[in-house]
């Protein structure tokens, strides 16, 4: 393990009643990295964060902070700070006093407090808001105060629990950029929890994809997008066509009744596998030139591209293309070797990947409702 590991979670398990919230979870977090815990609601990401923050004790496993086991250390003695989902600003204190809260507990001198608060307000672009009442601020401003308050005590690690969930889309995008800037400027480790895959991909150095209290994959945003480990990761991150396939030999596979060149190797000859093809990686060609042929069943205009659903032998593919193809037309499809990603079969095989219904969109919606 590398030297710059700041937090190491070892075999963490948490059970609430009969619910296994986290199951034998192990991961480490490097100093100064932006790491995101990504997954649907109930996947255990917030629980993991609360364990690091000290608000929840695991039933089993160790939490190591800079080579010291910190199980049982109360939150106020940990060098981590949290940005809460609903900000949790103190309503009886003004902006200044909220940010000064942690500094007063540290018993800093009044001038020092004043300087730090000023610096923090400048950092989050709220200079001049010192005397404002918390309740008079907009959601975005409250969010900034929460960030300033947590950063004022100079934490080693900042925990962020879906901090942008309550903001509207435009503001959320701006804050994503701002948070990333703050993280890079201050060189603090950020552990970020979200169910928004786009947010995770655009902000993180490392993404941890979780489901059912188990880590599905850890990697850079490119890794988890391009090389998903299983059907769950492939489906949860971005759009994907996930097909039942067979490995014929190294660099050669078959699915949808055709044979393809690919870049994957090391599977058994004839091994059943899951094949991922991203919608943007499918080329539409004339029927006679296509390796696969199918019939367009729906077209949706998305601005940058069209999203078309193509029925290929009963399996509905999603294809993103800039060329309009009318519904009912028979088209040919070609897939380059580097667009094909082969995964081992997992318990998620067969659950995702067909676009005969947009089930995953509905899942996302229910996520939000559950978390409210």
């Amino acid at each position, binding site marked *: 393990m590398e030297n710059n590991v700041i937090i190491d979670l070892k075999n963490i398990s948490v059970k609430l009643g009969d619910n296994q919230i986290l199951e034998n979870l192990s991961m480490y977090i490097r100093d100064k990295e932006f790491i995101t815990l990504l997954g649907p609601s109930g996947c255990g990401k917030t629980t993991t964060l609360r364990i690091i*923050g000290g608000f929840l004790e695991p039933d089993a496993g160790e939490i190591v902070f800079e080579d010291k086991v910190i199980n049982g250390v*109360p939150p*106020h003695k940990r060098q981590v700070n949290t940005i809460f989902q609903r900000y*949790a600003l*103190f309503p*009886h*204190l003004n902006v200044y006093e909220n940010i000064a809260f*942690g500094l007063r507990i540290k018993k800093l001198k009044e001038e020092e407090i004043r300087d730090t608060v000023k610096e923090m307000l400048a950092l989050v672009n709220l200079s001049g808001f010192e005397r404002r009442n918390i309740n008079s601020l907009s959601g975005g401003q409250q969010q900034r105060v929460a960030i300033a308050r947590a950063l004022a*005590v100079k934490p080693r690690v900042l925990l962020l629990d879906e901090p942008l969930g309550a903001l509207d889309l435009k503001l959320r995008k701006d804050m994503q950029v701002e948070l990333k800037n703050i993280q890079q400027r201050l060189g603090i480790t950020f552990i970020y929890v979200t169910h928004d895959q786009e947010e995770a991909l655009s902000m993180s150095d490392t993404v941890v994809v979780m489901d059912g209290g188990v880590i599905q994959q850890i990697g850079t945003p490119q890794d988890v997008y391009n090389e998903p480990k299983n059907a769950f990761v492939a489906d949860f991150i971005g759009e994907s066509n996930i097909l039942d396939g067979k490995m014929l030999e190294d660099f050669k596979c078959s699915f949808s009744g055709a044979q393809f060149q690919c870049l994957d190797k090391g599977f058994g000859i004839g091994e059943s596998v899951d094949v991922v093809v991203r919608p943007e990686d499918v080329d539409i060609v004339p029927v006679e030139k296509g390796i696969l042929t199918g019939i367009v069943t729906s077209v949706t205009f998305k601005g940058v591209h069209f999203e078309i659903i193509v029925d290929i032998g009963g399996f509905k593919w999603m294809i993103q293309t800039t060329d309009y193809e009318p519904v009912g037309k028979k088209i040919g499809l070609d897939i380059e070797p580097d667009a094909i990603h082969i995964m081992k079969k997992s318990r998620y095989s067969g659950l995702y990947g067909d676009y005969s219904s947009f089930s995953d969109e509905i899942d996302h919606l229910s996520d939000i409702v559950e978390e409210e």
Partner: protein
Amino acid sequence: MKRKDSLAQRLCASPHIVWSALFIVVPLIMVVYYAFTDKTGAFTLDNISRLSDYTTTFLRSIWYGIIATIICLVIAYPVAYIIARSKARVQSTMIMLVMIPMWMNFLLRTYSWMTLLADNGVINNLLAKIGAGPLHMINTAGAVILGMVYNFLPYMILPIYTVMTKLDNSLIEAAQDLGANKARVFIDVVVPHSISGVVSGITMVFVPSVSTFYISQKLGGGSFALIGDIIEMQFQISNNFNFGAALSLVLMILILICMTVMNRFGDNDESKGGVMI
């Protein structure tokens, strides 16, 4: 159309206006009228000037009221905090226990304290059995204050408990997160949050304590007459409505002053303020 609407609105609001006028404004005016007139209805300041005879009683009433309120607060605050922090089922049981005494008649409750505190009452009999006592408890200032605390304690617990339950747990976690230990969380988060409940509680205990007459009669034996007793005497025995009204008026003004001071104090920390009487 517009006129009809406003007429309908006025009609709807009228019962409330009539009610307020009949039972709040008119009696207030009558109190003031009686306070400044004599038996024949002529204007006089005699009633007001006679008030100075009862300065001690006024001071005693307010003093006892303050003591009772402080004791209630000291008992009620931790109780309310503990109830609010316990599990939902425990909470409803405990709140039930706080409220059950309120279902019994106020006079009956006070009367039973007489039996308990009397020189040959239940407590002294028990003390005698273990070879201690007897303690003289009935007809003391302590007994009067005990009666006030016992009777008005739920009115302190309930408003404090109500604001405590509204405390967002994430605020406590945020304070811990920023380095606050349990004591600091309590002082910096829980206490400021509960101020509005405390202010309502104080109002709801102090006002009835200051103006009570039954408790002081039964548990004080007449030797610790409060202003309520004097007022009652004017109406029931002396039949001097005018002087009774003057006493009531002054009591009302004193309570108003106390409450204004209280509200100012509460306002400093909590802009929202509490439920006031």
